[in-house]
C-alpha cells in the first residue's frame, strides 16, 4: 500500500501559516519552518522572533540590503521592518522560556503520540551533536507546531508511539503538519485533523499510534 504524494514543502508551509493566529508572536525554526514566513502576509499581524535577539524580524535581505550585523537564526541576512526591537541572548531566551511566544514551528526527526519531539541528534555514534535553541524552543512556546514529512526516506513513519532518537523535549508538541495529514498530538489518541491525498484508513494502516478521526 502506498500513500499518494501529498503537499509540497511550500504547501505544507502554507497550511501551517493558516493555523497561526492573527497577531501571534512566532518563532520559525531553521530549515523548512522558515518557509512559513512566505505565507504570512502583512495583514496577518504576525510578529516573528529570532532567537539571536530580534522581534519583528523581516524577510531575507537582497542586494544592498545585506548587513552583516543583521542575521536570522539560520545566519541569513534579513531586513529590519518598522517596529523591530533588539535584545541580547539571555533576554531572548528568557522570552522563549518564559512562555511569551505564542507559536513556534520546528522540524523533527520524530514526534511521539504523546507530543515528545526528537530533532537534534540521530543518535548515530559518530554524529556530532548540535542542539542550538531547539530544546529551549520546544519547551518555551505556548504552542509547538512540528512541520515534517510523515515518512522517512526509508518509508518508516516519523509519527511514532515513542521516539527512538534522543529527545529534544517531552510532551510539548501540540500539532504535527505533514505532507499527507495534520495531526493533534499529546492527548490519549492522535487526532487526524485533515488529510491530503490520503485517507484516514490509509494512515491508520501505516501508523503505529492510536488514531482518532478529527
Amino acid at each position, binding site marked *: 500500500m502506498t500513500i499518494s504524494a501529498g503537499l509540497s514543502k511550500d504547501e505544507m508551509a502554507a497550511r501551517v501559516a493558516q493555523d497561526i493566529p492573527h497577531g501571534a508572536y512566532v518563532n520559525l525554526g531553521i530549515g523548512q519552518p522558515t518557509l512559513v514566513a512566505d505565507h504570512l502576509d502583512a495583514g496577518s499581524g504576525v*510578529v516573528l522572533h529570532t532567537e539571536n535577539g530580534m522581534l519583528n524580524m523581516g524577510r531575507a535581505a537582497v542586494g544592498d540590503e545585506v548587513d552583516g550585523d543583521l542575521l536570522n537564526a539560520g545566519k541569513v541576512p534579513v531586513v529590519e521592518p518598522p517596529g523591530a526591537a533588539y535584545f541580547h541572548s539571555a533576554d531572548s531566551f528568557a*522570552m522563549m522560556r518564559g512562555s*511569551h511566544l505564542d507559536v513556534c514551528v520546528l522540524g523533527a526527526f520524530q514526534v511521539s503520540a504523546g507530543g515528545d519531539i526528537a530533532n537534534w541528534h540521530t543518535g548515530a555514534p559518530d554524529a556530532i551533536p548540535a542542539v542550538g535553541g531547539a530544546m529551549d524552543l520546544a519547551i518555551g512556546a505556548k504552542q509547538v507546531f512540528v512541520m515534517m514529512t510523515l515518512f522517512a526516506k526509508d518509508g518508516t513513519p516519523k509519527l511514532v508511539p515513542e521516539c527512538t532518537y534522543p529527545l529534544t523535549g517531552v510532551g510539548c508538541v501540540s500539532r504535527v503538519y505533514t505532507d499527507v495529514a495534520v495531526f493533534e498530538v499529546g492527548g490519549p489518541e492522535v487526532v487526524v485533523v485533515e488529510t491530503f491525498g490520503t485517507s484516514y484508513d490509509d494512515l491508520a494502516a501505516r501508523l503505529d499510534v492510536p488514531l482518532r478521526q478529527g
Partner: protein
Amino acid sequence: MTARICDTVAEAVDGIADGSTVLVGGFGLAGMPVELIDGLIEQGATDLTVVSNNAGNGDTGLAALLAKGRVRKVICSFPRQSDSYVFDGLYREGKVELELVPQGNLAERMRAAGAGIGAFFCPTGVGTPLAEGKETREIDGRTYVLEYPIRGDVALVGAHASDRMGNVVYRKTARNFGPVMATAAATTIVQVRQVVEVGGLDPEKVVTPSIYVDRVVAV
C-alpha cells in the same frame, strides 16, 4: 497579539479581577504609573496583593488604594518612609499583610517569573531573618537561599513612550522595575506620555518589546 492602544485609563484597567496580584512599577515617583493606580481605584478590584518597591506615600496613589481597604497584602522592599502613614497604620492594626523582600530579590524573583526559571539560589539575605525557614545550600563554598518567582496577574507600568505595536521606551531612572514587571505579569498595562507610529522608536532603544505589552494608554 500586539498591544491594544486604549483611549482611556478606564479601558486600560478594565477587567482586573478581585484577588489579583498587581505588580506596580516605579521607584519614588519616577516610573510610578500614577494614572493607572487612580484608574484601579476607580475600577474597584479588591482583595489585591500589591508588589511594588514601596508601600505608598502621602494620601495618593498606592496609599489611596490601601486607605480604601482594597489591598490584602503588600510585597515590597521598603514600606517605611517619612510619609507612609497610611500603610503604617493599616499594618499596625493588622489590616494588611507584609512580605518584606530585599530589593534585588524582588527584581530577580520577578525576572525569574518572566524568564521561566523555577527557582534560584541567591546569596542575598543569608543568615538574616528574611531567609528564615527558606531552603539553603552551599555551592562552591558560599551559602545561598532558594528563592521562588513572583508572578503578577497584572502589571501596571509607567514609561515614557510606546509605538502603536506596544514597543516601550523609558527615560532615565524611571526605567527601574517596569521592564522586569512587564515580563512577569499575565497582563501588562503601560501608561506612557505619548504613543508614536510604528517605526517612530529606535529599535536599539526599545527596552520592553511589544511581546510583553498588552495595553497602552497615553496620559
